[in-house]
């Protein structure tokens, strides 16, 4: 159905506005990607040499294989822990539910580097727990579960809560046992959400960087880490470019799948009962289930964070001290590239603020444009606009690195290069937060406003905006938090004078000495505290549970 006569000028205006994000993506995303392609093909005349190197050397094939299987294992482990929690959040009301659910948002606003150091503090050398899992696959998998548990719980429980319990009761009355009810009635209804969540978890762990760089040691390098090493340490740019392309092909395929599953799992706003099928648990078994779920959330989400705080205050002789924090501001004289806590905090906040100001309009415009698109272009457009989400921070930064260092656009030496990279990484989260709500707005509301005399612009002002502003605010907070914690792109693009907190923290462990680890833990704790503010904001303004993250 096409709506006529809303005025030629407003249609032009709408198209014109959409051009802004398109232009931004064209210059800072598509153009660098094309440069990567050119770089990989023209290193030595026009040849496929870098690709031959990648598919001809065991080293690279092992990296690709490792990347795939660790992502698969992480996804499986996350599903095993996340699905029961999703069920409990969808079907039961119990004291503390809101609080526990709020806690599961924490990982999303926490910088990777904080999480990595949290796990070091928990199960690393000198960790709180008596075993050291550093340089093993387990610490990587655990950190990945920490991050992605929330995705599974949020995505799946939103749809699960919407499954009418009467369909399950009907199946029981027709003679299905509990297991058959789940497989034949419940699971088919929540499957889109399970698939969407799995796809996203897979995508995130496929391009995992910070966790692997810090916790993995040399033998566990993903494609992402290898691209970083090739670029920053070995300066083999054509090879890095070719590997980026290989990774990009994988991630784009995952993105398109994700977009498709996600759309199917979207729930119209008007049908979202706050807790339609939820009830108080009855009997000892159900209470035990809920307690166990609570314990899992505690262990998975809180333990590494508490360990981080505890370790940042403990001294080598077993007591508590503030000394790790003491050196953060003054530093030791003569250390190269030292940047004080206050300077890096200032940098971080400045970048985060600027990123937010860019990412929010870009993401919001894209969300509205996607919500209005129809037909077969819709999935494709959705996938294309979400591509930066899957393109990985290192690929984005690498493209910017080799593209924007010469005219027409030379911002390589400017602080804006970081803002551009952060915006590319952050805006998909704005899109995802806003899109779910915009799609949920009943088209009749806009028609009703129009019939009451509201022009298209006023329909946007008085209907769309008031309904979506919370989601936009959530998106803004995500953009802020993501920029604050962004690690990979910052590491590749940074210059000493605009080091952010995560980069400054990483610098500490680049140098030897136990007091360095202490300082890194202390600075991570500061970063965690700053990020917590973002988390509190999100929980304040979130519109029910709408939104994907």
């Amino acid at each position, binding site marked *: *159905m*096409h*709506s*006529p*006569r*809303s*005025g030629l000028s407003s249609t032009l205006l709408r198209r014109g506005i959409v051009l802004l994000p398109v232009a931004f993506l064209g210059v800072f995303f598509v153009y660098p990607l094309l440069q990567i392609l050119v770089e990989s093909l023209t290193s030595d005349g026009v040849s496929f040499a870098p690709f031959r190197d990648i598919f001809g050397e065991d080293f690279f094939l092992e990296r690709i294989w490792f990347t795939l299987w660790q992502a698969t294992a992480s996804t499986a482990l996350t599903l095993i822990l996340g699905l029961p929690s999703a069920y409990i959040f969808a079907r039961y009301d119990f004291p503390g539910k809101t609080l526990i659910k709020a806690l599961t948002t924490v990982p999303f606003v926490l910088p990777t580097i904080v999480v990595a150091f949290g796990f070091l503090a928990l199960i690393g050398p000198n960790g709180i727990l008596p075993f050291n899992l550093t340089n093993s696959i387990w610490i990587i998998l655990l950190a990945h579960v920490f991050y992605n548990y929330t995705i599974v719980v949020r995505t799946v429980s939103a749809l699960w809560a919407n499954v009418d319990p009467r369909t399950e009761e009907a199946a029981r009355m027709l003679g299905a046992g509990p297991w058959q009810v789940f497989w034949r009635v419940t699971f088919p209804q929540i499957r889109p959400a399970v698939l969407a969540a799995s796809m996203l978890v897979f995508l995130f762990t496929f391009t995992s960087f910070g966790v692997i760089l810090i916790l993995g040691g040399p033998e566990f390098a993903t494609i992402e880490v290898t691209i970083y090493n090739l670029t920053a340490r070995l300066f083999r740019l054509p090879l890095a470019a070719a590997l980026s392309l290989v990774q990009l092909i994988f991630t784009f395929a995952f993105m398109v799948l994700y977009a498709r599953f996600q759309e199917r799992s979207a729930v119209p*706003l*008007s049908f979202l009962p706050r807790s339609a099928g939820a009830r108080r648990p009855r009997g000892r078994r159900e209470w035990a289930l809920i307690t166990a779920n609570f314990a899992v959330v505690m262990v998975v989400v809180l333990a590494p964070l508490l360990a981080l705080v505890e370790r940042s205050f403990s001294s080598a002789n077993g007591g508590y001290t503030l000394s790790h924090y003491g050196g953060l501001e003054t530093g030791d004289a003569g250390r190269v590239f030292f940047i004080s806590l206050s300077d890096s905090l200032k940098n971080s906040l400045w970048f985060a603020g600027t990123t937010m100001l860019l990412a929010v309009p870009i993401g919001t415009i894209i969300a509205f444009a996607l919500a209005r698109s129809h037909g077969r272009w819709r999935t494709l457009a959705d996938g294309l606009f979400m591509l930066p989400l899957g393109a990985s921070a290192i690929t984005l930064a690498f493209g910017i690195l080799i593209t924007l260092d010469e005219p027409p656009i030379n911002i390589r030496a400017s602080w804006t290069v970081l803002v551009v990279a952060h915006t590319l990484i952050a805006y998909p989260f704005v899109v995802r937060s806003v899109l779910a709500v915009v799609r949920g707005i*009943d088209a*009749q*509301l806009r*028609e*009703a*406003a*129009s*019939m*009451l*005399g*509201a*022009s*298209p612009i*006023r*329909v946007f002002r*008085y*209907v769309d905006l*008031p*309904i979506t502003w919370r989601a936009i605010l959530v998106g803004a907070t995500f953009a802020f938090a993501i920029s604050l914690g962004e690690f990979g792109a910052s590491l590749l693009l940074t210059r000493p004078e605009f080091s952010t907190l995560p980069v400054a923290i990483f610098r500490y462990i680049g140098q030897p000495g136990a007091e360095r680890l202490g300082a890194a833990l202390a600075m991570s704790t500061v970063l965690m505290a700053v990020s917590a503010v973002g988390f509190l904001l999100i929980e304040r303004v979130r519109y029910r549970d709408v939104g994907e993250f």
Partner: protein
Amino acid sequence: MSLLEATGLTLRYDDALVLDDLSFQVDEGEVIALLGPSGCGKTSILRVLAGLEAAEAGQVRFDGALIDHVASHKRGFGFMFQEFALFPHLNVEQNLEFGLRMSGGAKHSRRERVAELLELVGLAGYNERQVHQLSGGERQRVALARSLAPSPKLLMLDEPMGALDRGLRDALLLELREILTSLGQTSIYVTHDQDEAFSLADRVLIMEAGHIRQSGTPESIFAQPADAFVARFIGLGNLIEAELNADATGTISARTEIGTFHLPADAATETTRGTATLLLGDERASLESTATAPERSGGNSFTATVLQRSFRGRRLTFRVETGAHEFLFDVDTRPEHQSLGTGDQVRVRLDPSYIRVLR
């Protein structure tokens, strides 16, 4: 000249013809109902009139002026949606105020108007209520008040009772009728429910597959359905093919497979000869058992077998079969009727003044 004149409206969704060269008028102050089965195009008419959708061909004139190129928000029409489409982010008062704000009304006059409308729909004092706190019936009233607030030149109501249960619907229908006539509000009411259409509208337009099959007052449609489709749609399903013949006095004899009926001259408006469809009205019809009643011949009756009998309080409904035909007769509860049961052979007597010839 009529207030609203639609001529030749044609609309297609992906090749399917939804409106087929359709024309009609609405006079000032008139309440008309568009009645038809779902998918007949009645909602599409409203959307075209409202400017929410563009017709492929045809014109709409309002007050003499062409409005095809006027944007929906500038038409000054009101629209009440099936699911009400109340703004979830606004309370009752703000919902009602919305249209007044768009037209730039001053704060105090807006407040007065809101109070007046809440009074009108029986929800005085509901100003601060949130939309999600309202019951179905209350939502319906708020939606009505909201669409009336800017004093629309034409009010369109799209199945506004569809989301409500039967009892509530009957009560609200009377109130709605009262409100619309007291305001003299020109209105178009879309429904698939004949009770709603007949009890509410001054004039009913019966639609099928993008065409208007009949237009007229509820009484005239009931007294003389235009064709078999209309008759069936309004619940008059006792139809049978007949061969007509008029004699010199004007009396029409209609020969059918179940017997010959003799009708007064005014039973047919157009056709008095040839084949036609006969509507056997059950007003003043009676059934008697052939076992107890003496065999009396005579016109305007036929014998049949009772297939089903259902008790409806003040009425009894019999489903009877004769030859290949089945009919329903809704009759009074006189003892002769009460004693009849499934399988009984009966003689059905009809009052010829309720037998109609359809086109």
